[in-house]
């Protein structure tokens, strides 16, 4: 009897060790590029190019960071990106929550049809509408700065945010609206005084994803921003790659500096991140 139990636990231990071995191997492969980026960013250029490769920087060249930062006005890129993120976050929070309310808390004819139209625009390639948009913005003299990227967010262009907020609003009980209605509140009052205060977690998710989107956005600024003074971090990185191609520690320090805020943010808001993504896939099935 005891032998059998022993064998079983040993078998279990073996299986669990095997699982961990696979998981650790995959972790090493997936984590390696980031590790190598961090290590390279702290080497001298000579060490970075050494054959056979030097694994641990010796000495740690922390000065790579201040050096590349002052070489390409990196703080300016960060400021531009923060401005881009902050303004679009305001736009998305206002317009997407209004639209989401209309698509969830009020029942009206044509609502579900329009909602389907909205979601299906996600399937249309971005480039299918780009050229007339560019011509239009050019005519309004809006090209060269962030306005073409900011204005649409005030008009519900972030369909992901609207979708996410709608899903959340639908989980709130109808009774809270009914109670306010009995007290004589109109729809807008119910929206601002009842529904929005209950939706802080969903709004936090929307803000987080909009920030990450802006921080990563390359195509939008590439099309509309032509002056380097207004470059966001993403375009700043390509500038560094183009200018200092031979100085890999600088390039990796820049990549690291662009990655770190997002990774830190992820560690502080891991649950929000994971939940936000999971909603997309499992939220609406028809």
């Amino acid at each position, binding site marked *: 009897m005891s032998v059998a139990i022993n064998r079983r636990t040993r078998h279990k231990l073996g299986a669990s060790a095997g*699982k*961990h071995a*696979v*998981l650790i191997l*995959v*972790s090493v492969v*997936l984590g390696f*590029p980031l590790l190598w*980026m961090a290590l390279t960013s702290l080497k001298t250029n000579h060490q*970075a190019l050494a*054959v056979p*490769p030097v694994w641990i920087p010796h000495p740690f060249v922390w000065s790579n960071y201040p050096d590349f930062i002052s070489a390409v006005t990196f703080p300016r890129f960060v400021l531009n990106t923060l401005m881009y993120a902050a303004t679009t976050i305001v736009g998305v929070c206002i*317009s997407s929550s209004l639209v989401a309310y*209309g698509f969830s808390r*009020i*029942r*009206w*004819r044509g*609502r*579900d049809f*329009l*909602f389907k*139209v909205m979601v299906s625009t996600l399937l249309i*390639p*971005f*480039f*299918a*509408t*780009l*050229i*007339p948009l560019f*011509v239009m913005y050019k005519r309004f003299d809006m090209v060269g700065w962030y306005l073409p990227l900011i204005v*649409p967010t005030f*008009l*519900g262009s972030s369909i992901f945010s609207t979708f996410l907020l709608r899903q959340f609003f*639908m*989980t709130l009980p109808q009774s809270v609206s009914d109670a306010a209605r009995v007290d004589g509140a109109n729809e807008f009052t119910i929206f601002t005084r009842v529904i929005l205060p209950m939706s802080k977690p969903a709004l936090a998710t929307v803000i987080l994803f909009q920030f*990450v989107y802006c*921080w990563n956005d390359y195509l939008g600024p590439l099309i509309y921003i032509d002056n380097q003074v207004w470059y966001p971090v*993403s375009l700043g*990185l*390509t500038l560094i*790659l183009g200018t200092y191609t031979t100085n*890999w520690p600088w*390039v990796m320090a820049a990549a*690291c500096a662009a990655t770190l805020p*997002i*990774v830190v943010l*992820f560690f502080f808001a891991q649950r929000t*991140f*994971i*939940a936000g*993504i*999971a*909603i997309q*896939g499992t*939220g*609406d*099935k*028809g």
Partner: protein
Amino acid sequence: MSIPVTTKAAPQTAKMRKGPNRPRIQRRTRNGLLFVSPWLIGFLAFFAYPFFATIYYSFTNFNGVQSPKWVGFANYTALFHDPLFGTSLFNTLFYTVFELPLSTAAALGLALLLNQNVRGRGIYRTIFYIPSIVPLVASCLIFVWIFNPATGIVNDLLNDVHIQGPGWFFSIAWSKPSLILLGLWGVGQPMVIYLAGLQSIPAQLYEVAALDGAGAWHRFRHITIPMLSPVILFNVILQLVACFSYFTQAQVIEGGDIGGPGTSTWFYVQYLYEQAFQFLKLGYSSAMAFFLFVISAIVMVLLFRSSSRWVYYASEG
């Protein structure tokens, strides 16, 4: 975390009530439209108008300054005689055909690994997920560096096991596979969606199947895959949209040598972008844009048609 969805309106009660209710229904419709009006205006201005304008421009000669001049189908005939158009279309389809199944398998495989009952699952999940939140441009810089044929660590390590590493991004044969590898590194997003899907499959299904003597493969094939199929469809759609608009990674990595080496990494929308914004051939690039829309619409329709055969919705059965 998943949020239940109710789109069905409550069944209309007796017709008699329609009369006195009419003002209420009208008020509701007015309110609803008011609330969604920001999107409705945005949809008309930033989607509907430019969509139809693209079609119009595609039949004109237009440089953005002078007014468009009607040329009929000239842009389309020129397209089909343009070798780079064919190359960029081929490269994009090549990328899609390999990236789509490989990334689906990778994301699903990683999700299955994470769905096991092991200690430290949260840590593994974090490590698997983090590459997908690294800013895209930063990922490109990292890959260009580690896959550098002469000084990169990957070829160094291959050298240690006596394999002559290829030229990766600098080789005509390997440039597209290298981009596919970069794509596979960032499958964290679909992975998380699959993981959420896996966790919502009721455990009893597996228990009953195990009692019936179904092995691990059978359980995967006949429970996991059908139960996940709506999520698979969702991820495949997102992936397809992304593949058709594949741009950023190629543009960043190629740097000064767009499309290179040779023409091995000219992607469709890169070529469209160049025609539009470098050469101001807005009519020609609009024809490319509309053609892209037609292709992706056809693929989407085929995908949705086929989905009734392989996507299983638990609520229907």
